[in-house]
């Protein structure tokens, strides 16, 4: 089971580290990261294996969303199936 974590917002030091720390804490294994900075704007898409997650997925979504609010970023965490289903036959 994999989740797609997207992070967008104004670029600051340590965004990837913050998200990665939370992933490690809850046993979400980061598989891939795509990231770009356009001017002051930061956008990252992270793929994480959540099959060994040590909390409920819903709580993990809320924790990352709260982290986003705290750091002035928008963080969405969604099950990969929604993307696979929508874009692949």
């Amino acid at each position, binding site marked *: 089971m994999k989740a797609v974590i997207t992070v967008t917002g104004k670029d600051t030091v340590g965004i990837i580290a913050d998200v990665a720390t939370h992933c490690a804490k809850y046993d979400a294994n980061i598989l891939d990261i795509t990231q770009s900075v356009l001017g002051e704007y930061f956008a990252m898409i992270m793929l994480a294996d959540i099959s060994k997650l040590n909390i409920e997925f*819903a709580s993990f979504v809320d924790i990352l969303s709260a982290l986003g609010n705290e750091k002035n970023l928008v963080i969405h965490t*969604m099950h990969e199936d929604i993307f696979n*289903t*929508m874009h692949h036959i």
Partner: protein
Amino acid sequence: MINTQDVLETIGMIREENLDIRTITMGISLWDCVSEDTDRLCQRIYDKITSKAKHLVRTGEEIEKMYGIPIVNKRVSVTPVSLIGGTATPEGYLKIAHTLQRAANELGINFIGGFSALVQKGMTEGARNMISIIPEALTETQNVCSSVNVASTKAGINMDAIALMGSTIKRAAYLTRDNNSIACAKLVVFANVPEDNPFMAGAFCGIGEPEAAINVGVSGPGVVASAIRRAGDCNLSELADVIKKTAFKITRVGQLVANEAAKRLDTPFGIVDLSLAPTPAIGDSVAHILEGMGLESCGAHGTTAALAMLNDAVKKGGVMASSHVGGLSGAFIPVSEDAGMIAAAEKGALTLEKLEAMTAVCSVGLDMIAIPGDTPEEVIDGIIADEIAIGVVNTKTTAVRLIPAYGKKAGDSVEFGGLLGYAPVMELNTYSPAKFIRRGGRIPAPIHSLKN
């Protein structure tokens, strides 16, 4: 790795273009609740609904979190009450309506549909008793929805039933006169009613349905409107293709959610309803899609053609994305629930006659239209008869949900709030069809040859 563009597109659809799952509706059969004793019937109904749908709301919320997509409504539809009420008196049927409300309260769902009767060919005593109490039932409950199927292509049109509906609608409007005649927003009159529709007010669990089934209604007018905007000045063949592709993506999400809900609730998947269901929110309007296609305003000449193409493309894209399609499937054009329709009606670009023409090529019918409160009931009967005839002759579902807003006249407006929105009171042709309506009887089923 998942494609970055795909991820951004999906998130944009959800966050900026109002893509959502409009409803997960659990259809629940009440056949096994039948009893001679109304109290026992009510107890069985309550027990069955609250046990079958016990985890419906929680499951909906879990799926919402899992896929990051809003699931706006969690609802229940039941076997048409007039079929299981048997010998119940009107008071007995009222008791059933209250039972449905109690079950809805217990579950935390926002609507329960099935206070319904199927009278396309004739009316049983049970159906007559139930219909007679619809105004009180919809006034005394908040979340119960009612529907009456008065015609079908195979049976023809039951004009006696239609003649009852005008007065029923007027009485419902009067009883809720202190609340903008809101009871009428929960009552819909159908031709060729679908038996697996997840959308209110017309949802019920049809006679050929299993014990329970999960039916999902998708939405996404904002997504289609944005795709059309991005397509720029292409021709209509290309535009149809853009709509099809977008409808495919929207419906795939509906199918994903339906599969997951069916699995978690251990209930068979029924259908996905391929619908473009607007809300009063800005950017969630079917009228704005039509305007994006090139009309100065919804209601302009050309609207019927644009809507026909939109409706067809939505179905073509959606059918391939889902294993089972059903319900109302198509673009909805409820006036009060669509910011673009409201604006078009307010400036006089969209009239009732144009809306009637539009219903010949799209899903459902004259929906959420406020009319003057003093409209004679025969005129309401006439509007229903016209709309129902379009459905019967064209072998499609049509429906009427009118609000004769008590004390209001053409040009006023009525505020319903929430998803039901607000509606300008529309002007009507009030020349009387009374003599035609009073003839009663049935309009015979139409011939399906010699098509001209």
